[in-house]
């Protein structure tokens, strides 16, 4: 899988490249800012672009803007945005235009090479990735009035969080050491309690869950 990296800090860019090569990725380009990134994508047609949110010149949300441009110009390129901070609003903004091939991860996740590699792969294959800490903030957010989330069992909440992270039923099953069939039962029950429509499409499911959580 071909990957380009964009981060203005060389130490992080190089480190990440080393990790990804170790995990079997083909790092085909590196960029220090959004303009360079777009050039690299143009030139190298990668499967995934891993982008730091904060880059020159303003060091605010250049990475997010670049992601929007890549989505518009190169819809086939998966985008994994890395952030130093947990910002649900940024994450939701990123995923609001469709969850296909989009991910948002905290930089901390680089310490788990297996997990990082699987996230990159998921985004590259058109799936979605949402950092667990963002999902946790969304799930634990205090809600006014009748909160159907309180009707969920502990296990159902775990499944909901993993759904929101963009994982498939199979992955959720592996995570929780339960069968895929059991996961399906939990999903059905959760969607029922939250009054969300059942959908065979993972993307629509993620979107529905996120919309629900962030509403």
């Amino acid at each position, binding site marked *: 899988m071909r990957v380009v990296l964009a981060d203005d800090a060389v130490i*992080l860019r190089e480190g990440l490249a*080393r*990790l990804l090569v170790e995990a079997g990725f083909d790092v085909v380009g590196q960029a220090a800012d959004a303009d360079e990134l777009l050039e690299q994508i143009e030139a190298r047609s990668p499967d995934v672009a891993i982008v730091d949110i904060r880059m020159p010149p303003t060091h605010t949300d250049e990475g997010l803007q670049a992601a929007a441009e890549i989505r518009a110009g190169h819809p086939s390129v998966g985008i994994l945005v890395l952030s130093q901070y947990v910002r649900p609003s940024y994450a939701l903004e990123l995923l609001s235009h469709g969850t296909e091939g989009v991910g948002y991860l905290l*930089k901390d996740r*680089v310490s788990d*090479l297996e997990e990082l590699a699987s996230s990159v792969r998921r985004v590259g294959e058109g799936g979605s990735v949402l950092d667990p800490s963002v999902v946790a903030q969304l799930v634990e957010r205090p809600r006014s009035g009748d909160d159907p989330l309180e009707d969920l069992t502990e296990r159902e909440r775990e499944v909901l969080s993993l759904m929101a992270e963009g994982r498939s039923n199979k992955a959720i099953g592996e995570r929780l050491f339960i069968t895929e069939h059991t996961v399906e039962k939990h999903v059905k029950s959760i969607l029922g309690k939250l009054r969300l429509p059942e959908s065979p499409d993972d993307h629509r499911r993620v979107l529905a869950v996120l919309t629900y959580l962030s509403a």
Partner: protein
Amino acid sequence: MKPIDVAVATAALVAGAAVSVAVFTSDSADHAVRTGVLTLVIGLSWVGAGLVALHRRPENRTGLIMVATGFIWFVAQLGYADNHLLNTFGTATELLFILGFAYLLLSFPDGRLHSRFERVLVAIGFLVCVVLQLTWMLFDGDPENLIAVTDSPDAEAAIENVQRAIGSVVSISTAVVVVRRWRRASAPLRRAAEPVLWAGAASFVALAVSAVNDIVGQPLGDIEWLWWVVFATVPFAFLAGLLRVQMARGAVAQLVLELGRAPEPGGVRDALARALGDPELRLAYWVPERNGFVDAAGRPVELSADATVVARSGRRIAALEHDPALSEQPELLASVGAAAALALENERLNAELRARLEDLRASRARIVEAAELERRRVERNLHDGAQQRLVSLAMSLGLLERKLETDPEAAKPILRDAREDLATALQELRELSQGIHPSLLTERGLEAALGELPLRTPVPLELEFSIGERLPVQVEAAAYYVVSEALANVTKYAQATAVRVRVDRVDGNALVEIADDGVGGADSSRGSGLSGLADRVEALGGRLALVSPVGRGTVVRAEIPCG
């Protein structure tokens, strides 16, 4: 009335009476009685109006010119006298009063000519009224004329026509100058000058018409009497102008009444604007602390050239920024200022308070801004420093985990990188937290914290600390930052070879003084470091002073009350 006024008035009466007698008894006057009466009326109107003008505006030459013109008029009328000497004298000066009239008009209202063109007009007028007149007399064979050289009617007529031609051009020019000035004048000046300028301009147009008619051989004859009547009324037109100023004085009385009714905010300005007839009037108030003027909102203002300062018992209170034309009425400004002084003093106190609030607001805004900048700096430092190192460390550990399984030999350099990342992150965190608040200051106090500064300052530093006990926390912190910021400036800019830091207790204040022997010339308005310090010290009720003459070192001195 002053004795000099009485003397002048008496002289005018005597001269007028004498000249009138000369005219009444004249053999040459066509209408001796009419001419005599007119002679007396015109002369006395000019002298009288001039005296009133002088009385009202001693500093203005207008009155003087009017009095002079009145006397010149009497002299001119000697041209009717039968006595040859008087007659010659009168004839020689018979046109001079017109020059006086023109000068008065051109120089109105301040008694000075305003442009080169006006001076040229007066000079040409002098040529016509005096030089050509005397030349003409050389050829005038009248027996009364004592300076005739020859009798040449042709030359006489030619010179007369030249006089009339040039005279009419000068007259028309004068009228044009006056009308243009009136049109360009601001409202108060128009109001004051209107009667004089219109009567004057009309007189000179009439004079030009008369002269042209003479040239073409169709004298206007008796209609010319009309001109003399107008000429007699001109001084009254001027008196009317004066009366308008008098009416403005009535406005002062009105102003006193209005101010007595405790006006609304802004009401003082409106009342003053009405009294002065200047709707654009602006007020500025004196703030001694700033050694400058501020507006009603407390914002600093620069006075324009046309500003009159109002003072009370020798202290400045306010300034009236008014229409330039009002400078011609200093006594009106003075009386309005005097009438409003108390009200203005009240407004001044308000403005002074607002100026202080404005200072305070600005200082608070600077403190908030400085805190915000500092937070951003800290965030940026963390993001680009320690956080980055730790992410890098996390990556190394991730890689290490993998390598330990697959290639234990390759793990060693990764482990070394990880340890270096960790060490760097720790160091950066330490430096950052020290910058946020030096731990020594909290733990051991100001003396200990300052005691470390010589180790960190590249310039030799002598510390003299004379306070035995701990000071309030915020005082110690402010003192510490004053010293460290001042030392940072010394290191960066002063090129000093030595610096002395003194901390002492004076009159219940903590005194902090940093003196170097460097290049000096430091300016607290440049660079936010010192102004930020000043805000911090002033927030504790203290003062920060900077003495930094070029070439003679810099002294930063802070005095902070110790609660």
